[in-house]
């Protein structure tokens, strides 16, 4: 079975919610829609306090090309614009708060069927841009930019990322099982933006055999190739996925289109289908609620802007002692400092964990065992970067591959000295940038 050539680790999969069908979490009374749910500049509000809005209405415009539109995720009244709320990245951010009227009324012209074949390439790209679609696997890169690479870069391979290598998370898996034809229609739409002979792969990890077979069934007669991938973290990271499926290697600083490839997440492709074939902007997403400390573990379709507190209540409340609330997966997700955080376009999972050993986790000196080097999927030396950062030698760091590090966490996972390697590297990145200024 195919896998990437270097590194990788095998954390326990814990796909507890694999057989749980997606449920719709009813829209709460208040939704908090952050103005920045993407990479690039935050969107600029175009509504004011007191305005009545309908579901899917544009409430904040993208600021520049690398930015994304923000839409009202339910119908109601705008309660505040620009209020500072806690955001999943740990820093306060501005949001538009809408008080829902319970009617879920779509804006005019939205939520109706459209034939994708009737649209030109530019029209499709514009629709994707208007719908505010961003990479929903976690990065949040605006999709209309990703799907429109510079003219001099030819893309000959399109990869649907169904790897879902993070433990606990199952939203992409359930989407593939429950909405296979929609996902594949979305894939067709995305691939149609490129040349006709583009090769299309669907990469799925081997721990999801029914997803592999269902995708294979639905791909019959079409030009998709389903590629089963060895279950190894971080199979779902772009560089590793491209290397596994096509054998191509991305050098430092390169982007996928530099090697002729384009990768998209299942949830993003589904959102593209909804945007183009159903005229629905990005207002809701599927996520996994899991971990031992929540009563009911579910896969939920959540209105963007729902607070985590509402999710907790719907899932039966917290059980026992909890000391970590993680948005995302356990390997690359962000630990939260408060429950008062809203769901955003890039929230793929909410984990409630009692990490008993956390307080006693003490960093010791690097014992130079080399496990991090073996684990690093980029083939760098994490121990060295962490040691350099700890000793404040920030100027040397880029020479040792600082910009190659995607912070996947494999090195920290295996370290016997319990060093916070990724945190040191992140600190090194911040200090190297600060010193440059």
């Amino acid at each position: 079975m195919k896998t990437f050539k270097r590194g990788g680790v095998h954390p326990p999969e814990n796909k507890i919610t694999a057989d749980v069908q997606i449920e719709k979490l009813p829209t709460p009374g208040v939704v908090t829609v952050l103005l920045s749910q993407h990479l690039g500049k935050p969107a600029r509000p175009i509504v004011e306090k007191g305005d009545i809005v309908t579901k899917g209405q544009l409430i904040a415009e993208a600021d520049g090309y690398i930015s994304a539109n923000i839409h009202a995720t339910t119908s109601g009244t705008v309660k505040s614009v620009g209020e500072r709320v806690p955001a999943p990245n740990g820093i306060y951010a501005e949001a538009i708060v809408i008080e829902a009227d319970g009617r879920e009324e779509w804006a005019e012209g939205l939520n109706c069927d459209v034939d994708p074949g009737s649209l030109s390439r530019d029209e499709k790209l514009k629709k994707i841009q208007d719908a505010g679609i961003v990479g929903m696997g976690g990065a949040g890169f605006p999709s209309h930019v990703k799907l429109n690479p510079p003219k001099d870069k030819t893309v000959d391979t399109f990869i649907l990322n169904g790897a879902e290598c993070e433990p606990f998370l199952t939203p992409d898996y359930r989407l593939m099982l429950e909405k296979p034809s929609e996902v594949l229609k979305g894939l067709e739409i995305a691939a149609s933006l490129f040349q006709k002979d583009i090769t299309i792969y669907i990469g799925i990890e081997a721990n999801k055999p029914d997803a592999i077979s269902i995708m294979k069934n639905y791909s019959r007669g079409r030009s998709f190739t389903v590629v089963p991938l060895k279950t190894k973290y971080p199979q779902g990271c772009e560089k590793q996925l491209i290397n596994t499926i096509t054998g191509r290697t991305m050098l430092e600083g390169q982007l996928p289109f530099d090697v002729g490839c384009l990768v998209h997440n299942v949830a993003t492709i589904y959102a593209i289908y909804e945007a183009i074939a159903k005229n629905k902007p990005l207002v809701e997403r599927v996520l996994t609620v899991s971990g031992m400390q929540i009563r009911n573990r579910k896969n939920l379709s959540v209105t963007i802007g729902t607070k985590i507190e509402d999710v907790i209540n719907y899932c039966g409340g917290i059980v026992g002692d909890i000391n970590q609330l993680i948005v995302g997966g356990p390997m690359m997700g962000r630990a939260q400092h408060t429950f008062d955080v809203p769901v955003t376009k890039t929230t793929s999972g909410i984990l409630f964990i009692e990490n008993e050993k956390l307080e006693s986790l003490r960093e010791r000196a690097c014992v130079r065992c080399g496990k991090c080097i073996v684990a690093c999927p980029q083939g760098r030396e994490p121990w060295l970067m962490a040691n350099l950062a700890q000793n404040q030698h920030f100027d040397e760091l880029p020479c040792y591959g600082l910009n190659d590090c995607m912070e996947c966490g494999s090195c920290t996972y295996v370290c016997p000295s319990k060093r916070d390697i990724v945190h040191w590297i992140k600190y090194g990145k911040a200090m190297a940038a600060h010193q440059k200024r």
Partner: protein
Amino acid sequence: MPAQGERLTVSYAPHIRSGESIERVMYTVAIALIPATAASFYYFGFRAFWVTALSVLSCIFFEFVINKIRKKKHLTCFDGSAVVTGLLLALNIPATLPYWMIIMGAFVCIVIAKELFGGLGYNPFNPVLVGRVFLIISFPVAMTAWPEPFAVDMISAASPLGLLKTEGAAAVADMHFWKLFFGEITGSMGETSALAILLGAAVLYIRGYITLTIPLSFIGTTFAFTGIFYLLDATQYASPVFHLLTGGLMLGAFFMATDWVTSPMSFRGQIIFGIGCGLLTGIIRLFGGYPEGVAFSILIMNAFVPLLDRWDFVALKKKKEARQS
């Protein structure tokens, strides 16, 4: 604000760790040393047991004292590294060594070679070998008083390598290789039984704690070096198989040269390290004043390790580019 009892803790990703820890690694190494330690009890009797116990306890004691002096909140003396140092030190000395010398050796290993540099992870030289070399140089007579195996009254005799150095190749030419392999020979407590060492090394290899790069390049180089001279003149030089099975080569190649803290991190570095150790061992054994050269060769190569680690072509090229721009 979180409710009472639900106070969250924020940390940076990843939020899960593998079960690997220093303690687990060190105690696994200690288990891997059980065959060699047991063989030493078998061949050298009760005193071997007291030597081992004293060595381990002294190492733990000295590390405890230093922990207290440094006012460390969390003691490191029980993390297993002192235990491993104690076991290895015992395997490096004759079973007849006076108890006060063992304690001095433990002091040098733990306090001077390890803790004074900052503790585990900071030492540039292999602590056990620093202790052994200190004992060899300070107490040459006591450190070469090798007891014969199964001897009742600890009469010392020359080890095979010692015989080779003083009497020449003829004196060791008809030593049975099986005896050398199983360990029924005079020597330090750990170096006699190649079989026991290989068993322990297999445990570490299966667990993934050592790779075979350094041991094979070390042993291979020594074999080749001594082999060349044996081929040139079999009357003056002993066979390379003899050299493999005697002295501290097996113990050194599998347990000392592979010590994580003092060996190179890159594959190329490890090969050079192994070859260097092998060459130096061969030179000292064949042409040097000491009959055994493993300890010295590993320590000398330890000094090269920071240089070998820095020899990363990609990084050096980038640094040059950064300087020029």
